[in-house]
């Protein structure tokens, strides 16, 4: 619902006692409330527009089956809750609403995009809630799903293994968390939301989703993980596209000759290490300096400037991505598809890495998943990948660094890979990535972004409330429903861990 206040004439000012709002009125001005309604579902199903004197009532908890009645029960993945009842000020019933798994994970699925301003939109919290919902659905329906979460900010997806032992302890966590937040009234809100989630089958404590961590050497946050796997990438573990994505900035347009040199070298020299690649290129450069003009690899002539440019990039990468680069040996310990845990969360730590290193890891991991899902013999049928700061990997600018993620996005639904991407500004994301996201989620958003960006158009009149959404509220557009929905979801339990405060 949308409430608007409008004053179309100067009488708004004069009406207050010639500008004095303290003058008492004999008659309190009439307030007309215009309410814009979106048809969410009809029962019985009819195609005629609302007219005449159709009765209007508030939705109730019993309407849950009507709202999601068209989604088969085995396809229901919890989206969140509609607040139904008389007033949002009261403790109103929470009506569960669902995604259709076929449109989220199945053959008809595309991807999910979550957008909103950092800090207020609770994008990663919602992504995690959605992951638990998916896991609950997979567990109930005996589906083989792995979830990969790239951790890009501090403890977003760390401590996932540290959940309360039971719901009594969870309630204690909530009370302490609300106290730390300075708003004790949040306790009841969270208790009700989690209770509603449990009734809808999403119970993180009962699910006991196994968590597997992947991080790099010397990660100071490794203490927050259990038995982390340490990853490193040698040149032999990477494809030319991944090396290129790591070497160049998103807004950069690398010279064609440099890209060709990298492709040619990696194609020609199998099993080389980064160190050897650097030496080989340095040797080429020395030969040029010795006056032998242009140097060739497989009949191709290279200019000295091209070689020097790639050398500089490699040296830069060696410096900026030393935590994850296996410099001497051809192969390191990459994150592989076979390591992904079926029915579990697989957290890949990126926080603390440079932008170059993050791109390298994300692209390499996505390629591993893509290739793994194409294998006939596989232990997982569907992989859900959560990527925050998607604009780093799929920027709007024309750049070869995003080629690989675009390929994953374009082919994802055939492969069984669902990307849950999140970013602060949807306007900074490549159009094809957004276009392939048929489920769109919006948290609190920048007002200018709302009015200018195409992604918000699918929300119609709802987009006007995007700048005033509260934490824990999301606007969701999902093709299973004919209208966007304003949903509520709870704070992730691991976020309320008292250890975070200490």
């Amino acid at each position, binding site marked *: 619902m949308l409430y608007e206040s409008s004053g179309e004439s100067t009488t708004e000012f004069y009406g207050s006692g010639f500008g004095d709002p303290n*003058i008492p009125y*004999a*008659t309190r*001005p009439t307030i007309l409330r215009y309410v814009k309604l979106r048809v969410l579902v009809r029962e019985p199903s009819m195609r005629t527009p609302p007219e005449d004197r159709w009765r209007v009532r508030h939705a109730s908890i019993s309407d849950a089956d009507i709202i999601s009645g068209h989604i088969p029960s085995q396809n229901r993945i919890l989206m969140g809750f509609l607040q139904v009842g008389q007033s949002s000020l009261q403790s109103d019933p929470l009506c569960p609403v669902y995604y259709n798994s076929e449109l989220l994970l199945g053959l008809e699925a595309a991807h999910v995009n979550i957008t909103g301003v950092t800090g207020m939109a609770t994008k990663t919290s919602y992504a995690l809630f959605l992951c638990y919902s998916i896991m609950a659905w997979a567990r109930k329906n005996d589906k083989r799903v792995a979830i990969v979460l790239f951790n890009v900010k501090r403890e977003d997806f760390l401590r996932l293994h540290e959940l309360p032992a039971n719901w009594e302890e969870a309630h204690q966590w909530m009370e302490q968390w609300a106290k730390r937040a300075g708003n004790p009234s949040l306790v009841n809100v969270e208790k009700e939301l989690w209770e509603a989630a449990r009734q809808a089958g999403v119970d993180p404590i009962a699910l006991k989703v196994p968590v597997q961590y992947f991080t790099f050497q010397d990660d100071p946050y490794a203490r927050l993980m259990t038995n982390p796997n340490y990853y490193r990438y040698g040149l032999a573990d990477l494809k030319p596209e991944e090396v290129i994505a790591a070497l160049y900035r998103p807004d950069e347009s690398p010279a064609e000759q440099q890209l060709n040199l990298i492709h040619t070298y990696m194609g020609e020299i199998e099993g080389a290490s980064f160190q050897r690649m650097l030496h080989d290129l340095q040797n080429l450069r020395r030969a040029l300096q010795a006056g032998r003009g242009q140097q060739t690899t497989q009949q191709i002539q290279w200019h000295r400037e091209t070689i020097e440019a790639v050398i500089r990039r490699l040296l830069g990468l060696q410096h900026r991505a030393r935590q994850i680069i296996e410099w001497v040996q051809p192969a390191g310990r990459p994150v592989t598809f076979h390591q992904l845990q079926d029915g579990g969360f697989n957290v890949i730590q990126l926080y603390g890495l440079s932008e170059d290193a993050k791109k390298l890891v994300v692209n390499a991991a996505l390629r591993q998943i893509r290739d793994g899902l194409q294998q006939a013999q596989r232990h997982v049928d569907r992989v859900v990948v959560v990527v925050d700061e998607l604009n780093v990997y799929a920027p709007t600018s024309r750049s070869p660094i995003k080629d690989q993620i675009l390929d994953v996005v374009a082919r994802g639904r055939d492969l069984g890979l669902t990307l849950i991407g999140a970013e602060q500004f949807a306007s900074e994301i490549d159009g094809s990535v957004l276009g392939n996201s048929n489920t769109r989620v919006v948290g609190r958003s920048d007002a200018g972004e709302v009015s200018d960006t195409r992604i918000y158009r699918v929300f119609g009149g709802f987009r006007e409330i995007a700048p005033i959404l509260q934490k824990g509220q999301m606007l969701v557009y999902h093709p299973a429903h004919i209208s966007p929905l304003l949903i509520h979801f709870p704070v992730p339990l691991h976020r309320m861990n008292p250890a975070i405060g200490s």
Partner: protein
Amino acid sequence: MTHSLDRFRNLSSSFSQYVSRIGATLAHITTLPEEAAPDIRVGSRTLTAQLLGYIPINTAPQATLNFRFFIDGVQQTVPVFRITINGISVPVMASHLAAGAMERRDSRLVPYYSIDALVLLMPLTALRAAGWQGPAPPGIQLDSTGNFCNKIGLYEQQGTPLYSDTGVTLEVFPTSSISASELYASGNIRRKARDRASVILRVMELIVLWRVVSHANLANDEFVLIDGPLFMPFRYSRLADNALAPLESFNNASTANLSLFNRFFRNTLGLVKRVEIVPHLGLDRVFQATGTYQVPLYLFQDVVPSADDEVSSHTISAFLRLRPEILPELQSIWSPVSGLIRLDIPFGAISSPNENWADPGFQPNLHRAITDPTSRHYRVLQGILETALRERWPIPESESPHRMLTEYYAIAETEKWLRAMLLQPQQIRALFIGP
């Protein structure tokens, strides 16, 4: 009042059959300029009147009385078909009218009572005089025999069609008002139809007032405010119901009728926001608003019929400006008396119960009352005027500068409420097209 689908279905069936039967031509969808934007007349006539004196009131007064009910009426009158006779095309109009009262309860306006009527306005007598042999329109005629209250009740309850012959007057002994030779003057035919609609609307306002004073249990300090000159609806009281016939003239007020007059005039005030008639002298103090107003009170001796601001006997006319503060902000206002309103206060409203104010020999000593602040007349007058001034906030939402200066918010809301009930011109015409 609800727009019952069945009622309009009945009307549509009756009207469309009638149009088909007489072979009339349906009217084009046009809105004539004088119907879309009527002239606003302000201060165009002066008249000799007795200045009773001035009453000072504070510009930020406390309300001592309660203006509890607000009565207004609205209409939508459009040409619906034409009858051709002797080569002359005669327009026939239809008017949808609504009158109602809003009640203020705890500072909130709530609908109290309303009635509506859709009336076919046709110069039937003149057409027949010209040789037209068509039948009379279906339904009941609103004519000089009166009883409009019951006839409109039948329309509301059963959907019985209503029509009125604009070719004859509504007097006790009706006379022709349009001759056969005047049928060519289509502008005059339309004007007569609009005038007839206005008369019916006044009668409907009186019916609403009758309902209010009969059922609302008005206390002594509670008033009903009518939009327009106080006496105008009473001129047609016979047409409303025979029981109200004495109210047509204060000359009929006698001891025998006093209770009837008291019922209608003890708690009723009229508000004229388009002041056309102004007294010769004495308005100067109205335009000298400082910390206190000096409200001039006049007594017009005779009934002076006028379209918008008819004055009458037995009624004190108080002139005041509601919102002089905003006059400098409104560049389009040019008349020095713009923003002037007139409050019609009947003798009955200021008299004590044992005073026979309606007796022709009654002479309220208003001069003494004004100079004697302890008198009832003074207290009641001052209370009414201070309450009237306090009503000036809030200002109704309007694009019209004139309304911003002179209209009460409560009256404007009453008008909006009623106007929302009216059929649109296209809807009225559609009733004559048939399925």
